[in-house]
């Protein structure tokens, strides 16, 4: 009952936006809310179900975004000719170095162990850089204003969503192998670091996705607004609803995106609910509540943690791919931990950790507030500063500060919910 009421309330908020502001902004909130809900679902799987403290969400989201570029952009053949082979060879050599170093470490002992491993690493790194660097330079020299990277595979963009999940899952596997089994605080710092590294790679490796030069004009799974406006049949149908072509086309595109995202969310939500209620889900909760007891019952805690860490990260990767598709561009400079990691955490905690529906609710609600705090704050500030003289220093400063209100508000919401509803708006059953 509470679930239905709260969801109805959030729906009301979004509908209210539609009536009071515009349907375009309402749909924008809805679409990003759907994506946020998917991210929250991923974090909830890790934190709510397994108690894993992952604050590297941003990294997995960005990897999903990278997948969109790698899958959907057309390949830059000149760049491939200039240095594609060299880069691939370099990456293989780099991976081989790490594998060799691990093998040396595992197979030898005594003094040889430390020096041998270090030697393999050093020699391997030098060879790796010698192969990689010239190719990277060659690739980045190819038409740097428009390309300067290898491009993608030129496949349909929808394929990038599962691939984004796979990419994130692969990264999560490597991280999990090393960092799980550490204490929860250490895992938190480790994931925080990973996320920063992923962003640093995206920003600096121009051959991969153009770095801070951004990849723009990603292919879309839905028609372009301009094409719709030029389509007489569409304009006629829109006129039937009493809408002009421009408004109708933007709304149509957003609705179609929304349907795609909703489909993904519903599939993932159903799967998560099934997982939660399955013996596997009960086992995960048993491990979360008492690791020692679960281990004594013969459960492989580390393996289960790795499993759920990979799954949750994959969901974040899918959401990241969806988001980049919606934006139509990959801008590594725009990824910030407060927005892409900690905000998702606020969603999960506010919604109710351990409850999938709660995470979804939190996703919608917190995203709505994140967007709407600014106009509301502006209204408030105008009221507060109404008595002040125009052009006064304080008035300008206060009005200017409204854009930073959302961080403050999110903190207050998180603290209030933690205090008043420690288990979230929709507690775990």
């Amino acid at each position, binding site marked *: 009952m509470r679930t239905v009421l709260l969801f109805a309330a959030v729906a009301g908020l979004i509908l209210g936006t539609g009536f009071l502001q515009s349907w375009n902004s309402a749909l924008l909130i809805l679409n990003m809310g759907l994506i946020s809900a998917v991210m929250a679902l991923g974090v909830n799987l890790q934190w709510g179900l397994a108690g894993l403290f992952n604050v590297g969400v941003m990294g997995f989201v960005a990897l999903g975004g990278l997948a969109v570029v790698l899958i959907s952009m057309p390949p830059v053949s000149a760049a491939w000719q200039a240095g594609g082979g060299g880069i691939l060879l370099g990456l293989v050599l780099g991976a081989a170095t790490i594998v060799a170093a691990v093998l040396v470490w595992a197979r030898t002992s005594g003094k040889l162990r430390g020096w041998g491993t270090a030697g393999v690493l050093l020699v391997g790194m030098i060879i790796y850089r010698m192969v990689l660097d010239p190719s990277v330079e060659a690739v980045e020299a190819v038409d740097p204003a428009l390309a300067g990277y290898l491009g993608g595979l030129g496949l349909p963009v929808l394929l990038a969503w599962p691939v984004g999940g796979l990419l994130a899952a692969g990264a999560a596997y490597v991280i999990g192998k090393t960092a799980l089994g550490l204490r929860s605080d250490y895992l938190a710092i480790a994931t925080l670091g990973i996320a920063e590294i992923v962003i640093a790679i995206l920003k600096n490796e121009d051959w991969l996705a153009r770095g801070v030069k951004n990849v723009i004009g990603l292919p879309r799974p839905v028609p372009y607004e301009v094409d719709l406006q030029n389509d007489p049949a569409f304009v006629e149908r829109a006129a039937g609803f009493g809408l002009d072509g421009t408004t109708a086309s933007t709304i149509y595109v957003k609705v179609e995106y929304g349907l795609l995202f909703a489909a993904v969310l519903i599939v993932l939500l159903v799967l998560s609910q099934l997982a939660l209620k399955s013996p596997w889900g009960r086992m995960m909760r048993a491990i979360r509540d008492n690791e020692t007891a679960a281990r004594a019952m013969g459960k492989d805690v580390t393996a289960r943690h790795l499993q759920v860490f990979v799954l949750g990260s994959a969901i974040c990767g899918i959401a990241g791919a969806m988001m980049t598709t919606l934006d139509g561009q990959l801008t590594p400079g725009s990824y910030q931990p407060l927005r892409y990691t900690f905000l998702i955490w606020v969603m999960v905690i506010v919604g109710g950790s351990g409850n999938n529906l709660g995470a979804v609710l939190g996703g919608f609600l917190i995203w709505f507030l994140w967007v709407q705090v600014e106009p509301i704050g502006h209204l408030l500030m105008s009221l507060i500063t109404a008595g002040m003289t125009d052009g006064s220093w304080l008035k300008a400063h206060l009005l200017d500060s409204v854009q930073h209100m959302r961080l403050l508000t999110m903190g207050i919401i998180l603290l209030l919910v*933690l205090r008043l509803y420690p288990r979230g708006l929709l507690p775990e059953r």
Partner: protein
Amino acid sequence: MDLLNGFVALANFVLIPAIAYGSQLALGALGVTLIYGILRFSNFAHGDTMAVGTMVTVLATWGLQAMGVSFGPLPTALLAIPIGILGATALVLLTDKYVYKFYRAQKAKPVILVIVSMGVMFIYNGLTRIIIGPDDYRFADGERFVISARTFRDMTGLEEGLALRTTQVITVITAIVVVAALFWFLNKTRTGKSMRAFSDNEDLALLSGINPERVVLVTWLIVASLATVAGVLYGLDKSFKAFTYFQLLLPIFAAAIVGGLGNPLGAIAGGFVIAFSEVGITYAWKKVLTYVLPPALEPDGLVQVLSTEYKFAVSFVILVIVLLFRPTGLFRGKSL
């Protein structure tokens, strides 16, 4: 001569910056480690506590400058630090009273406190941005150099210059004074000893009549002061920007964990380990190597292992290596 030149280049570009940066990290890590030892949680809001303290100091510095006060050759900000500490302490104590105390009374799990500190982080971050704004501010004034590169060259006749900035000297001296005072306090005074006892064994400390609220209060006082000093030193050396301070969280935590969480000596060692590796790995060694190696072996490239953008990767890799091989850190963690 070439060797000497090589050493001067090394000192100029690696040793001196790393020592200054390491002192700043060490002061930050000390705060994290103290909270972990006494209050028993990882404080995600520490970077933003530093930002708040520094912000108040910057505002006070501007005020002093407007009044025409200056500190001679030294930066005016040094005079303003006490005000910054006051501001940070007030905020932190208010936060403790209205936020953390509730969970302490409940004996909440540490991870809940970590999430609470996430909320506090949002609030501090928002406050900083609302009050001073998200831009980059430079507030260092006074004499820029103790020794400038040109003076050094004229003095010694070497090819390489050695620049010693005032802020670097101040950083190191302040760090030494603060750390010495902290260790004196922890080891010699009654309150300090009760803090260590509390950190070692809470129940035993309570039994022997130590007032926990007083220990917590003193801890917050020390942490706020350390955070402000660390933040101001970092800001003087580089610049003040809210977002940069938030990002400092990673190297600071890496330093505290590498040294052993809860161990103040470890925090200092960890700070320097992280700083030296960050600077060493992101520095282009060509110049130093050209002096040191015989001409036949001179490197062609920059001999830079990673570009400076990857400095976070360095703290992270060191963190992982230490955790894999010595999970409790270089010094045994978890006791003051």
